[in-house]
C-alpha cells in the first residue's frame, strides 16, 4: 500500500485508532512519529492496526555481539585502531558504523608485545568479531584475537596489493619488501580463485 512521508514529531493518529509501533511514541492520547520517514499502517488480525514509521524500506541491519564483520582501518594509534565497519557477514551496509580494535584485542597470545603499527595500517581491510556494542560514542568494540580474523587485504607503500607469507608478514609482489600485519587465515571455502 502507498506509504506517506512524515516529518519528525508529526501527530499520526489517536491512540484509540491504532497501536504505536516502531519509530513512534504515545503522548496525551495521540501517536507521534519519532523519526522522519514513511508511515506504515499494518492491520493486525484481531486488534488495532499497528502504526510505525520507517526510515528505509529495509530495516537497518545492526551488528550483534559475536558477529564477524568486515571493516576498513581509518586511523591507528599506539593504543588502538579505529575502523569503519563496511559489511556484517556478507551483507554490505549503506552507512558505515565506527569500530575500535584495542591493542589487547588484536592477538590472543602475547598481548603486551603487540604493536598496533605492526598489526594494522590505515587502509587495510580487516575481518573482526564484535565483542561489545560499545560506548556512548557508538564505537563498536571489535577483536581480531583468532586465527581466522585479521588483515585480509593490504597495500604496500608502492600501492600494490600484498601477498600473505605468514600469520604476521605480508610481502609486496612488486618491490618484494615485507611488511608486518596480523594476517587472517581465511577458510578455503571463502577464497575465490
Amino acid at each position, binding site marked *: 500500500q502507498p506509504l506517506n512521508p512524515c516529518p519528525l514529531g508529526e501527530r499520526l493518529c489517536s491512540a484509540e485508532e491504532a497501536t504505536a509501533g516502531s519509530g513512534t511514541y504515545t503522548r496525551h492520547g495521540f501517536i507521534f512519529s519519532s523519526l522522519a520517514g514513511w508511515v506504515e499502517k499494518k492491520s493486525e488480525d484481531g486488534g488495532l492496526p499497528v502504526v510505525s514509521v520507517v526510515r528505509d524500506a529495509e530495516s537497518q541491519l545492526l551488528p550483534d555481539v559475536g558477529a564477524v564483520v568486515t571493516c576498513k582501518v581509518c586511523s*591507528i*594509534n599506539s593504543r588502538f585502531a579505529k575502523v569503519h565497519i563496511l559489511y556484517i557477514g556478507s551483507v554490505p551496509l549503506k552507512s558505515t558504523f565506527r569500530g575500535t580494535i584495542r591493542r589487547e584485542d588484536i592477538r590472543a597470545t602475547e598481548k603486551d608485545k603487540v604493536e598496533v*603499527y605492526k598489526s594494522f595500517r*590505515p587502509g587495510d581491510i580487516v575481518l573482526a568479531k564484535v565483542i561489545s556494542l560499545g560506548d556512548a560514542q557508538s564505537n563498536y568494540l571489535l577483536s581480531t584475537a583468532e586465527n581466522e580474523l585479521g588483515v585480509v587485504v593490504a597495500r604496500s607503500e608502492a600501492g600494490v596489493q600484498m601477498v600473505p607469507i605468514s600469520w604476521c608478514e605480508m610481502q609486496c609482489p612488486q618491490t618484494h619488501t615485507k611488511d608486518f600485519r596480523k594476517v587472517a587465515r581465511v577458510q578455503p571455502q571463502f577464497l575465490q580463485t
Partner: protein
Amino acid sequence: AGGVYWVDSQQKRYVPVKGDHVIGIVTAKAGDVFKLDVGGSEQASLSYLAFEGATKRNRPNVQVGDLIYGQFLVANKDMEPEMVCIDSSGRSTGMGIIGQDGFLFKVSLGLIRKLLAPKCEIIQELSQLYPFELVLGMNGRIWVKAKTVQQTLIIVNILEACEYMTAEQRKQALAKLSGN
C-alpha cells in the same frame, strides 16, 4: 658488497624519523604526556616517565615553553610521533631538558648533517674562538650558549652564515673576530 646507500638532499621541512635526536619545544601538558613541537606536520608526544630517574612520584620539572633534547621512539607516516629522553637501557646519554638561557635558532637540515659529521671543521674552529655549549637537533634546530649574550649572538650568526660561506670565507671571518 652490502652497506647502506642513501641520497642526501637539501630541505628545510623536517620529517620525523625513528632514532633521530631532535630539539622540541613543549607546547602543552596533557595528563601524563607532554606535547612537543618538533617542526614536523604533527606534534610529538613525550611521556613524563621517559626521563632518567623519573617515577610516578618523582616527576620531571617540565613547563610549557621548555626546550627538550630527545630521540624518536616511534615515527612513521601513520601515527603521531613519540619521543623519549632515555635510551633503551634507561640512561639519559645527554638527553633531557635543555637549561636556562642560551639561544635557539633554525637552520637547514643539510647544515645540521654537515655539523654532525665526525671532525667537523666549523665546530673545531668555533671552539677556538670562545667556549660555548651547543645542542644540534636533526630537525634543523640549534641551541647555543656562551659566556655572554654578545658571544652567543656572534656564534649564532656564524653558524647561520656557514650555510652559504665557503671554508675560506669562514676562516677569514673567524680570524677577524679573534683579532678583536
